[in-house]
């Protein structure tokens, strides 16, 4: 499992270590370079001192005369410094006592400073300088001519690197120890700061862990948390809000289903128990009618709930075909015209003819049936129902506006929720608040849309928007529909 703390610790530690190692290496190399320069400078100075002891006589012979110079650094038994003076042809004519009769190994090309294996097997540092041995004649010439003279000798002077390497080892060791201390400190500091920095995240995790289905009203307190975590707190609170609403909706739905089933079951049970307790043949027809109506009511409710469940699961299939909207509306209205007239409702229709929509014929009939029943049932006596069918842009719309009582714009979002009703009464068990939910489900299955709004405080308007059917397809469908009607009439 990925761990932010481990990731941060490893990354920061690697970065710090890399920087420290690089810095150490730079310091070490710089110090080594400076020490070598100083070491070589000291060798050069000493070489020049020895070179001063080399002379050329008038016959051109080179001679070495140390005089009373202090050559104690080159003495036998002292193994720190060595020199060897050679003629230009490579023949040796002077050696330090420490060298005895041995030669100092040196490169043939005259490399100025170089590392060397000394006689005792230690590593050493040597310098080779080619020079013109001074002579008596030189003292008679001017200095410029003497400087331009060809070298006739060279000196190789070496010294053990033991002290130099010891100093470099101490320096390297110190840098390594410093790097290790920095690494350990980095681990401790990173661990501490990461743990401290992630503290609010751990607390948030524990708080989230305590959230259950019955504590979705809980909200995370973002006061005092780091600004980087505030968006997480805000989003978590938003998520809880949405979850709480979804759970509440689900609980309400389940409760509503149970409640809506209780009433017809109570009706059926009371009907049966009373009929069995006091058998009355004269009441049997009414009892059977009641039982049948209860069965129809429950059947309708269960079918609607199944449709809603199928639509939610995305498996509600609708075979679409071109359907002429106005004639479907006329057919649906026939079942409600009588009740509307008995309630003195004023009904106005404005229907553009020959508007074909892509729809499922039975679903469309169900939608229109529910919308019209809703309007006729809930429009107060003497109120108005206005229906309009028209093409608007790339859609064909059916709008149904009716007078309403006790409805507010706040109610609009709930109109299509299953079992929602403004009046808590169950209208005598006739309606159960699923009609508009079914309309919405069918609309979604047919790629149509249903909306509700309130043009003013006493009217509510439902608008169904359909995808128009293609003209030639609609004609073909019309002929098929008419033929099937003719066939049906023949056999009816």
């Amino acid at each position, binding site marked *: 499992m990925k761990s932010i703390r481990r990731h941060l610790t490893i990354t920061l530690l690697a970065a710090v270590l890399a920087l420290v190692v690089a810095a150490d290496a730079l310091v070490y190399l710089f110090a080594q370079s400076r020490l070598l320069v100083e070491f070589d400078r000291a060798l050069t100075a000493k070489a020049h001192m020895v070179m001063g002891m080399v002379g050329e006589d008038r016959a051109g012979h080179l001679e070495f005369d140390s005089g009373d110079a202090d050559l104690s650094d080159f003495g036998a038994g002292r193994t720190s410094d060595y020199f060897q003076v050679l003629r230009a042809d490579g023949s040796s004519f002077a050696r330090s006592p420490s060298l005895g009769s041995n030669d100092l190994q040196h490169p043939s090309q005259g490399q100025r400073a170089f590392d060397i294996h000394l006689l005792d097997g230690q590593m050493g540092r040597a310098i080779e300088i080619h020079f013109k041995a001074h002579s008596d004649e030189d003292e008679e010439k001017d200095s410029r001519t003497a400087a331009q003279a060809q070298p006739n000798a060279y000196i190789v002077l070496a010294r053990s690197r033991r002290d130099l390497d010891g100093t470099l080892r101490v320096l390297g060791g110190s840098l390594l120890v410093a790097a290790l201390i920095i690494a350990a400190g980095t681990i401790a500091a990173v661990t501490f700061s990461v743990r401290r920095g992630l503290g609010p995240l751990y607390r948030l995790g524990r708080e989230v862990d305590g959230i259950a289905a019955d504590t979705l009203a809980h909200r995370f307190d973002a006061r005092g948390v780091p600004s980087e975590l505030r968006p997480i707190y805000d989003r978590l609170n938003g998520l809880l809000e949405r979850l709480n609403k979804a759970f509440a909706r689900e609980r309400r739905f389940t409760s509503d289903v*149970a409640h809506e089933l*209780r*009433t017809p079951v109570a*009706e059926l049970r*009371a009907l049966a128990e009373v009929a069995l307790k006091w058998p009355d043949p004269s009441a049997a027809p009414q009892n059977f009618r*009641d039982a049948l109506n*209860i069965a129809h009511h429950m059947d309708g409710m269960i079918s609607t709930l199944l449709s809603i469940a199928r639509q939610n699961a995305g498996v509600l299939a609708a075979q679409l075909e071109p359907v002429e909207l106005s004639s479907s509306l006329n057919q649906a209205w026939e079942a409600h015209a009588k009740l509307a007239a008995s309630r003195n409702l004023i009904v106005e229709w404005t229907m553009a003819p020959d508007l074909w929509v892509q729809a499922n014929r039975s679903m469309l009939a169900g939608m229109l049936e529910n919308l019209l029943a809703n309007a006729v049932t809930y429009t107060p006596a003497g109120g108005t129902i206005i229906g309009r069918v028209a093409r608007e842009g790339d859609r064909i719309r059916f709008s149904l506006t009716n007078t309403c009582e006790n409805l507010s714009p706040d109610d609009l979002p709930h109109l299509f929720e299953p079992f929602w009703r403004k*009046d808590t*009464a169950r*209208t005598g068990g006739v309606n159960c608040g699923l009609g508009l939910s079914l309309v919405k489900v069918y609309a979604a299955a047919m790629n149509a849309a249903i909306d509700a709004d309130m043009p003013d405080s006493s009217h509510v308007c439902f608008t169904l928007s359909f995808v128009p059917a293609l003209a030639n397809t609609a004609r073909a469908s019309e002929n098929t529909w008419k033929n099937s009607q003719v066939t049906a009439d023949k056999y009816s």
Partner: protein
Amino acid sequence: MRILLVEDSERLQRSVGTGLRKAGYAVDVTGDGEQGLWYARGNDYDVIVLDLMLPRLDGLSVLRKLRESGKDTHVLILTAKDTVEDRVAGLRSGADDYLIKPFAFDELLARVQALARRSHGVKRQLVEIADLQIDLTTRTVRRGQRMLELPPREFALLEYLAMRRGQLVTRSQIESHIYDDQVEPMSNVVEAAIYSLRKKIDRAGAPSLIQTRRGMGYILGDTAQ
């Protein structure tokens, strides 16, 4: 006994109303809250069976308004609302009992009977007058060793008189508690029922347990005392 049933489901109105009438109660039925409140305020019911989800005025509002008007009629809430909160709200609003749909009709009947007894201050289930024994729970009547067969309406009349034993019960009280609105005001249905009841519970030649106070009403009691 007179019952008011306030229930918006017409099918439940029919079946429960029929059952209560068959059990010997006079039953008035209405389907909306406002009318139910009007009935409850204007009549002297023994028990009101009240649904909660009613059109026009919900059941809890009916109950509160009824109590505010000083009526202490026993109320049984009959509803599909089954949560603890609903039951607590119902009982705190002044209900005497709470029954959840769907229900067993016998249970509803038993609760209504219990509330009816309480409304008359009777706690014992057995009322004894001389050797007449009236079991208000099993709704059976015995005179000595003889079991009497009484139709529900006659039992309801005897039960009403028994709950007010020794007290004068007027004709109009009997009409309002035993018979519903369908009884003609000037009919002799009460006298006929008393006559029929006497024939069944009295011994031949012995004084009737139901005494008539002419122009006033009837008293059920032991004449030997």
